[in-house]
C-alpha cells in the first residue's frame, strides 16, 4: 500500500499520522514531511504509526533523524504504536530504548513529552 501522511494538531503537539508502507522508496517522503514540520516551527512532534503495515530500516533511520533534530532544537519526539509486529522491530533494533513509545495518541500527547 502507498504511503499516506496526514497532519493534525493536538494541543501543543503536531501529530503526523502515517499509513501504508514505509520503506526505502517511500521513506524520503516521510523525511521531507518531518523536515517541513520542524522547519515550520513544530517542536513537539508525535508520529502515529497506527496504520503502518510495513516499516523497514530506512523508515527507522528517518524517525531517528527527526528525533535527533528535535532534541537539538529543545523539542520532543514520540511514536504511537500498538502493533506487536512493529513493536518487535523496535525491540530487536534496541530502538525501543531510544524512542518514547506510546500505545495511543492520547497517551503520547498527554504525557507532557
Amino acid at each position, binding site marked *: 500500500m502507498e504511503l499516506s501522511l496526514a497532519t493534525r494538531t493536538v494541543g501543543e503537539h503536531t501529530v503526523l499520522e502515517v499509513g501504508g508502507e514505509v520503506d*526505502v522508496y517511500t521513506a524520503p517522503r516521510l523525511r521531507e514531511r518531518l523536515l517541513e514540520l520542524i522547519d515550520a516551527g513544530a517542536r513537539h512532534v508525535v508520529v502515529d504509526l497506527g496504520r503502518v503495515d510495513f516499516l523497514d530500516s530506512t523508515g527507522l533511520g528517518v524517525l531517528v*533523524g527527526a528525533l*535527533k533534530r528535535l532534541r537539538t532544537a529543545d523539542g520532543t519526539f514520540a511514536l504511537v504504536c500498538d502493533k506487536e509486529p512493529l513493536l518487535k522491530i523496535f525491540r*530487536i533494533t534496541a530502538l525501543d530504548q531510544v524512542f518514547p513509545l506510546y500505545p495511543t495518541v492520547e497517551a503520547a500527547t498527554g504525557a507532557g513529552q
Partner: protein
Amino acid sequence: MATVRLSFSPAPVHVRTARLVGVAVARRAGVREDLLDEVRLAIGEACTRAVALHRQYGVADPVLVEMSDSGAYSVRVVDRAPIEASIGLAALDADQLANEALNEDDLTTGVGFALLAGFVEDLQVRPVDEGIGTEVRMVWPVGR
C-alpha cells in the same frame, strides 16, 4: 536449483516488488503464516542493502534474488558491489543509535543488519563464489 529468480535494476522502487514475490513464493513453499511478516521484512532489508551498495558504488548491474524451496525455503540476495563495502556490518546498541554523531545512512545500515540478524535464524553474508559482490543467504523452515 532456484524455483524463482528475479533480477532488478538497483532502484528503491523495485524493492517492494522483490518483497511481494519473496513472500508469495514463501507462502507457496509452505513457510508458516506467522513467519511471513519476518520473511517480508528480511527480504526487503537484504534488497535495500544491495540497492544502497550498488548506488553508493555506482554499480548499474541488477540485484539478483533467488528463491528455492528444495527442503527449506532459501533466499539468496546477490549484490555486485566491492567486497570491502560489506565488511563492518554490526548491530548498534541504544547509546550508539542515539549518538548525535551517527549519520542516518550508517544508522540505517546498522539497524538493517540488526533486523536481518534478529529475524533470520539461518543467515549467512559471504562473498559470491565468482566475481565481485556479496550474497545474503536466508533460510526458513517449511511446514510440510
